[in-house]
Each structure stands twice: as structure tokens, then as C-alpha cells.
């Protein structure tokens, strides 16, 4: 090949083409999505324009501060490498059948996240709706401390370093982990395991992950 201007142009436009086609156009399509109410109503008699319902809450909801600190822990532990946060539609995979969420997730669900953690791996289950499943903070703490306690045979690593084992000083702490009486994972007599601030934030974050609202483009069907 001797036509160098053509070579340069080709090299440039090849990538420019996909940059415009994939990145800029998805930014144009999705970059201005805003919160909305669960349903929309017509604004005029012709029913051509749909608007939000006045006074209804807006979704997705703003994230809460302490849960956001938990998200930082989630990021710093690399949870994303085994857990996705996206629910696929009903006839594609078994996400909804497994109870990972009541509906598929759509772009609007992610607009308030400064870092989107969709993930591409499910060594562990999807967590998009983990806060909406019947698992309370006590369960999450035991599970994080050592996954074998709640999910025997799991390959999830233990996060015991997010907990502090200490001598019980007077009365046991209110937030100490509640091990079963005969649990082989519990602390020695006279000791207790308490979550650090990071563990509490992480659990707060996990409990905040919920797809419990409809969106006009993705209603929860009964």
C-alpha cells in the first residue's frame, strides 16, 4: 500500500465510526434520561402527550449517603467480578424465575449511579434486587463474615477482616453477630464478633439494592 493519506484516513475513520455509532449515539439517546413517576398520564384530550403524575414519587430514588459509603466498599473489594447487577427479561435466561428481580432492568434504573456496576460474571447470584429479597442485615453480616455459615459450599471468599473479634466487656454489644449455639464459626467463649463501620456500610448498600418500583417503560407485572 502506498496511498498513505488513505491509510491514515481509514485508520482514523474506522475508530471514529464506532465511537460515534456506539458511544456518542448512546450518549445522545440515554444521556438525558431523568427520574420519572411509575406511570404516565395523558396531558390533553388527544392523549398524544404523556406526562408524569403530579405528586407521585420519582424513580429511581436518590441513593442514601451511608449506602453510598457501602458502595465504595463493594467497589474496593471487587465484588463485581463475581456478582452482576442486571436482570434480564423473562424469556432470556432465568433471572426472574430465580427471584433475582420482579422485572428486567432498563437504562433508567442506573441513571443516578456515578459508577455503574452491571458486571459480566455470575459466579455468585445477581445482586440488582438483593435488598428486596427476604434476607435481613443479620443474615448478610453472617454471610459476609463467612459465607459457609449461611450458604454451605459457596466459593465466596470470607470477609472476616471487615469484622472485629473482641472480648465481651460487660454486656454483649447490640450489633454483635448472632451465631447459632453450636456453630463452628463462632468466637471463643467470652468473645464477640462485631461489624466494623465498613461492614455496616456494605450491608446498608446491599439492602438498598431494590427493583421494587415500576417505570413507564418497565412496569412490574402482577
Amino acid at each position, binding site marked *: 500500500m502506498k496511498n498513505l493519506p488513505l491509510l491514515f484516513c481509514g485508520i482514523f475513520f*474506522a*475508530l471514529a465510526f464506532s465511537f460515534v455509532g456506539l*458511544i456518542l449515539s448512546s450518549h445522545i439517546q440515554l444521556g438525558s434520561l431523568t427520574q420519572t413517576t411509575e406511570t404516565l398520564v395523558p396531558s390533553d384530550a388527544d392523549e398524544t402527550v404523556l406526562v408524569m403524575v403530579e405528586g407521585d414519587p420519582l424513580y429511581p430514588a436518590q441513593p442514601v449517603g451511608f449506602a453510598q459509603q457501602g458502595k465504595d466498599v463493594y467497589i474496593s473489594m471487587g465484588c463485581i*467480578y463475581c456478582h452482576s447487577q442486571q436482570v*434480564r427479561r423473562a424469556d432470556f435466561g*432465568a433471572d426472574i424465575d430465580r427471584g433475582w428481580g420482579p422485572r428486567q432492568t432498563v437504562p433508567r434504573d442506573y441513571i443516578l449511579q456515578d459508577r455503574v456496576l452491571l458486571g459480566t*460474571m455470575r459466579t455468585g447470584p445477581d445482586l440488582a434486587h438483593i435488598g428486596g429479597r427476604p434476607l435481613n442485615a443479620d443474615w448478610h453480616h453472617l454471610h459476609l463474615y463467612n459465607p459457609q455459615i449461611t450458604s454451605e459450599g459457596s466459593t465466596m471468599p470470607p470477609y472476616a477482616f471487615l469484622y472485629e473479634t473482641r472480648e465481651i466487656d460487660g454486656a454483649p454489644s447490640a450489633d454483635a453477630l448472632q451465631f447459632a449455639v453450636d456453630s463452628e464459626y463462632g468466637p471463643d467463649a467470652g468473645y464477640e464478633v462485631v461489624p466494623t463501620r465498613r461492614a455496616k456500610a456494605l450491608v446498608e448498600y446491599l439492602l438498598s439494592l431494590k427493583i421494587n418500583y415500576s417505570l413507564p417503560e418497565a412496569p412490574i407485572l402482577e
Partner: protein
Amino acid sequence: MSAPQSNTQNQSPYSSANEAVRAELSVIDASIRSAALFFVISAITWLMIGTVFALLTAFKSHDPDFAGAYEFLTFGRVRSAHLNAMALGWGNNIIFAVGLWIMARLCRAPINHKGILLIAGVFWNIGLTVGIVGILMGDLTSVEWLEIPHYATPLLAISYALIGVWGVMAFRFRKGDHVYVSQWYILAALFWFPWLYVVAQIMIIWFPARGVVQSVTNWWFAHNVLGLWLTPMALATAYYLIPKVLGRPIYSYYLSVLGFWALAIFYNWAGVHHLIGGPVPVWLISAGIVASIMMVIPVIVVGINHHMSVVGLHKEVWRSPTLRFIVFGAISYTLVSIIGSTMALRTVNEVTHFTHFTVGHAHHGVYAFFTMIMFGGVYYMMPRLLKREWPSATLIKLHFWACALGITIMVVALQVGGWIQGLEMNNAEIPFIDTVQNTIPWLKARSVSGLFLTVGHIAFAINFFWMLFAAGAVRAKQGPTLLDDSKEGGAA
């Protein structure tokens, strides 16, 4: 004459029959020697570090308590440390060595101001070290392929720019009219990589785009690191070294043109197939799938071109350390790309997505294709830079067999295990914990494959440093180190 006829017969070990050409290449080799040596040494060091992280990751995946008490060695961090040590430490350093060397040779342009290149290389490796330590300390970004913390990335970007510009400068001051296919690939990759990296950094880390636009950008970047950076560099190396070693030209100029442009146009749209089924517009996904299928064209074209270039000379291929690795890599390129295109089909992706199948596929591409070709490149380049030969053919054979077997075991184990995992995951009647338990035997097989690769890497490193330091043990007088004992001569 009793020796069998061979194209490589009677050739100088340094490949070119013409003494003037040899003298010119020798000047060019001398001009890049110190920088290339620095990059190869850095690359091999990172390869060994990455191997340690790889083994830790592999063991932890089936034995979660393994080194489980240490926060900095938790799975998510060692996995990310492994990826970045391999991709940016081994991959980029070896590209800087082999790619720039090939570029300089093909442009017939010695490298000037090599001190700046060397300093930029030092800063690249400092930036990467800071980044990997940052990952282990918990500052990783949790953005796939971009885990390096934000305080290390500007240093990486600046030092890359200083390194990459040397390739472009060599091209600018080239001699002669003809521009060979390897030069297109290297020039394009040197230009594409910084664009991808800077856009991804800005749109995901520095000024996050809204919602899933980040994810689209993420996979546009991550897939293109493979497609527009590692792949063209490996193809350039194969295109340069196959004719060099065999002493006959590449089969078809027109096929190489078609292969290059088809890759340039289709590959960079393909990345969004990592989001199939996800919360992104369907038209984006469809565009990605179409591009992924179209990738069959450049892959088949390059496959035919490489195959026709070596056909009939299989004995020479097998005897040459360089070509044994490169042909393994070239065959892997065809295989991994065809599998990759298939994985982009929605019905297939429904099973393979979110499973170890994808992990197997990634190693198939980055290791069986890219890394094997780069090993071949090092086996060819070092004797010419150092004017010495590889001390041990046995170590080269050990390197080849350990890596070839290891990566084959890994890809088969992860893809069979991943396929089963995907089928089970899509059947809600099977408890999730069973899908986890049933992957464990395959993950153990992956750990075994990792031990094979470790043996190969150690053999490679020993041979390399032996050659580098044991100056007295040179065997250049005896001709190149070949992998069987026939006395035919020929090029390594």
C-alpha cells in the same frame, strides 16, 4: 547433495542474504537495543508477577479460604492485579519491545533520542507498579480492564504517548516506498490505543457519563484493547516473522489488505456483545452482534494468508522456535475468533454470558493467540539484538509444551465447565449453589493448567536471563538454536 531441499537452506542465521541489508538492519537493531532490552526484561518480570497473581486467583476460585484472611489478597483484588499485570505489564511492554523493533526495521529507520524512549519506559513501569499496588490496597475502580486507580492513570497515559510516538516517528522517517502490512497494523494500533484509553478514562472515571453509557463505553474500550491493540500487534508480528524465517513472501498481498480493513471496520463495533440481554438499547446490541459475525471475514482471510504462507514447510515451522510459537498463535487466532463470533449470537450468549466460558475465551485470545505469538517474537528478536543464541533448546521445548498443553487444558476446562454452568443457571429448578458446586472440578483443572503455564514461564525466564548474563556461553558460532538436531542450518 544429500540434504533435503529447503527454502531456508544456505541462509545466514540473521536471515538476509544481502550484506548491505544486513548491515543496515544491524544499525537499526543497535539503535533500539537498550530500549528493547529494557522492555523485554520488564515484560518478563511482569509475566512472572502476573503468574503469581494468576495462581492465587485460580486457587481461591475453588478454595475460598486460601489466603482468605488477608484483605489485600481478596479475590476481587488479586484477580484485577493479575489482569492488569498481564495486560499492561506483560502485554504492553512486550508490544513496545517487539512492535517498535519490527516497525523500526520495516521503516529502515534507526531510533533517535533513544534515551527519551527509555525514560518513558521507566515511567510506564513505575506508573503500573503504583497502579497494581493501588489495586491491592483497595483503590481499584471495579471497571473491567480499567482497574488501575485514577492517581496512576495519567502517568500511564503520558508515558504511553511518549513511547507510542516513537513508532509513529519511525514511520514518518521511513525509507523506501513500499509499506508492508505489519506497518499498517502497528501504526493503526499505536494510534487506536491512546484514543480508546483516554475516552474510556474520561467517560467512566473522570467525568462519568450517565448510567449505562458508562457500560457501553467500558465494553467498547475493553473489547478493543483486544481487537485494536493486542490483535493487530500480534498479527503484525506474525506477518513479519513468517516470511522472515521461511525466506519466502507472504502468500497474498490482496488478502492482507482485505484482512486489515475488515478488522479495522468491524472489530471496534463488536464490544457491546458483552452487554447482550442487559439494560442497553437493543439496536446497540444488534449492531455489536452484526459486527461480531462480520469478524469472520478478516479472520478467515488472515487464516488463509498465514496458512498458505507456511504450507509445505511444516518441518521448518516445527524446527524454528519462533515459528513453532507463532503458528500455534495463528491457529489459535482463527479458533478463538470463530468461537467469539459464535458467542455473540443471542441464543449462544444466553448460555455463555456470566459464566467461566467467557473467562476461557479471554485466555484463549490473550494467551493462546497473542502471548504465544509474542513468545515467538522474542525468540527471533533476542539473538539479533544480543548477537548471541538461546543457550538451551531443551528449555525452549519445555516452554512450548508446558504453555501449549497448559493453555489447551485451561480453555477446554473453562469452556466445558462454563457451558454446563450456563445451562444450569438458566434452569431455575436447579438451586444456584449447585451451579457453583458443579464448576469446582473444572476450576481445579484450571489451577492445574496454571501450574503448567508457570513451568513454561519459568523455563522461558531462565533461558532468557541465562542468555542475557552468561555472555561467555554464547553459541552464535554454531548457528541458531533449533528444536531438532538435523544439521541443515536455517533461521531460527
